């Protein structure tokens, strides 16, 4: 009986030691989950049931569930080493661990009948069901893992490339310079980049019309200088690859706010 009790605890500690010894490996995740979830729960069940029958699947499921219920408490036990003032947490742990231990030692259940547990259909039917589940799961995983192709992007910022420094209000005669950024994304792009300045009276002045071929993954930044601005609301509009960015330049003789 002692072997049944001590073995899962030894396995849990061994798994934890393996995780500590071999971090950053593919085995770390399953080992850690086994150490955290399965082994402590199985040890508790061994204590409580002392060799009484549990169906294999039931034992595994109950072990994992008890392990999961204990996992945050184990975490808090660790944290108590640093934070001994957390009285409520200490109480919660005392209640949890105390009651489970009491259940394990004091309430030895009477002899239980063997629980046959879940039954599976015939071998062909089981493998047919499992095969369908496997194919459906694989299709879902594959569909979900499709790599996206980054689209073309267009941006505008101030001369130093900072958006937070963009002006809200300008004085008449100011002639700011902006920076336009093009990013090709996942495919090669070709086509013109157009920029124009729309005056308060609605007249439009071309600022730029250039072909901007870009290889996939490449980006390009160039300055966009403006002529001196008169009073009113001016709009700079830049277009490329169906994208549009625009700035509203509020030019005022006397600046509010």
């Amino acid at each position, binding site marked *: 009986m002692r072997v049944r009790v001590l073995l899962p605890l030894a396995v849990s500690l061994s798994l934890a030691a393996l995780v500590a010894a071999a971090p950053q490996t593919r085995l770390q995740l399953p080992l850690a989950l086994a150490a955290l979830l399965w082994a402590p729960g199985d040890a508790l069940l061994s204590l409580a049931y002392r060799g009484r029958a549990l169906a294999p699947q039931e034992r*595994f499921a109950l072990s994992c569930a008890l392990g999961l219920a204990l996992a945050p408490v184990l975490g808090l036990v660790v944290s108590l080493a640093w934070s001994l003032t957390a009285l409520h947490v200490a109480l919660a742990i005392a209640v949890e661990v105390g009651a489970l231990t009491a259940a394990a030692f004091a309430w030895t259940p009477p002899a239980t009948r063997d629980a046959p547990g879940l039954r599976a259909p015939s071998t062909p039917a089981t493998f047919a069901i499992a095969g369908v589940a496997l194919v459906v799961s694989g299709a879902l995983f594959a569909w979900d893992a499709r790599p996206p192709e980054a689209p073309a992007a267009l941006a505008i910022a101030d001369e130093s490339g900072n958006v937070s420094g963009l002006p809200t209000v300008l004085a008449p005669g100011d002639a700011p310079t902006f920076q336009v950024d093009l990013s090709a994304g996942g495919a090669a792009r070709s086509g013109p980049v157009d920029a124009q300045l729309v005056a308060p009276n609605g007249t439009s002045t071309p600022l730029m019309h250039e072909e901007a071929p870009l290889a996939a993954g490449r980006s390009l930044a160039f300055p966009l200088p403006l002529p001196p601005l008169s009073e009113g609301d001016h709009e700079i509009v830049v277009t490329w690859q169906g994208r549009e960015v625009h700035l509203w330049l509020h030019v005022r003789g006397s600046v509010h706010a």
Partner: protein
Amino acid sequence: MRENLRVAVLVASACLLFVALAGLGTRGEPYAPNEWAFSHVILAERAVESGHLPINERVATQNSLSQTNSAFQKSLGFPRLTFYATTVWHFWNGLPLQPSLLATLSVLTGLSPEAASRLPVAGVVVVLLVGATAGLLLARRRGDARAGGIALFAIACGSAPFLLDMRVLMPSTTVVLLALLLHGLLRRALLKDRAALAFSLTPLLLLPFWYYTVAYFVMLLFLAFALGHLLLRRERHSLIPLWVCLLLPLLLAVSLLVNGALTSHLELARQTLGSLWMGPDAGSDYRSHLNREPWRSALLYAQVILLFVPLGWMGVQAAASRMRSQRLGPHRVVFAAWALGGLLFSLLLEGAVGISFLNRSVIYLAPAAAIVAAWTLAPFWEKRSVRVGALAAVALLGLGSAGLVAGATPSYAPGEAPAYGWMAAHVDHGDLVYSSLEASSVLLREDDFVNVVAFPPSETLLERFWYSHDVASLAPYLPSFDEFVLRHAVATQGFEEFGPARLPIGQEAYAKFGASRDLHLVYDDGDVQVFRVAMQPERLPFIT
């Protein structure tokens, strides 16, 4: 041995199917499976970095925002108390177990807390438990115990609310406690196993420090068991002693009172409803909160009905038996109390916050519904038509779940990662950024923007800022932030701004942001637009 191997294959395939469906749309994307998980991620990240697990030492004595927010902001490094900060505060203040679990998982597995929060381990454990419970029950049922396989697959793919919930670490881990309770009660009822009760009851005492909603469900569940004592007193069904039925809800209530949650929730109910349980918005929903697309509603309701018919039928049979003064079998007592507790909880939810929140009941009752479905089918399992019909029903449920899960998942369009990366490089990280819940949380978690704000769910804001076609309606809101991030998906999907399965805002409402003279449109990649607020100077004196 061969039988055990076949069972293992069956269970493993059900778990695999569950993982594939529950993880749909979340792999390789920085959007968390559910953004409510992100506050725990932040706390767990800080815990992992500092080597401390997060415990709020003042939780037992000081709980109100005004009392603790300055200590909170200081310890977590939030310079402003934004919407996100208050969300994090909510969990920082009252729920130490969730960040503790996440940090523990992260430290042991070597995964980042963000990645650890996406491990659907709790869901897999529930699937395992449902299989075990179905086996336990059907081994003592007239008929073919192989029908238990239906329970496995029904729970693995048969309920979209359950699947969506179980991929979020915080609520899903506590649903494991419910599944453990159901199994323990049935072991006690069928095998006279007294230890099972202690194993299944004790972890419930942690709920007030783990997840409030499940704590309320358990309180009502045990009140239902107490009610069962009154109704069945002549039958001496002491499945759970009466004093336990009354003591457990009392202990949970006291714990919730001590950690401030109960007071806070009652205050919230008073503020939002006008009265404690019933008010102008109660019994229905926020008007803008139930704008669910019709196909989604129809599919969801059809799915819920299909899965829950056996449980409902068992409830009707139990009531009829009582009317005829017939004895109820012990397993029927368990399921009847479970259904009654679920009903009480549903009434509370409907009365307090509205019908769209009833998915919580669906989630908590789904394991029992799957098990009862298998139990109901077992006597007829030899009939080929029953087997084919049951498998077809499960397949239909799975198809419905796939559609609902995929449609209710915040998808990460190709242009979104580059857009947030561009913002990280070109926007001052101290700026106040306004966006939807998912976009804001990515900017906060991944790109180190400290002042990101998501919308508060007020009708006025939704109507004037988001749904309105009028550019002028934006003006009162714009001086409140520096940048505004707009995902194109809101025009056609509308998921993120308004919770799962809400109406999109439409192209006209989307276009008004680009037409505003108070906004620079500084970035556009077809999937995301970034605006910089540039108010016309004449507006400011009137607005301020």
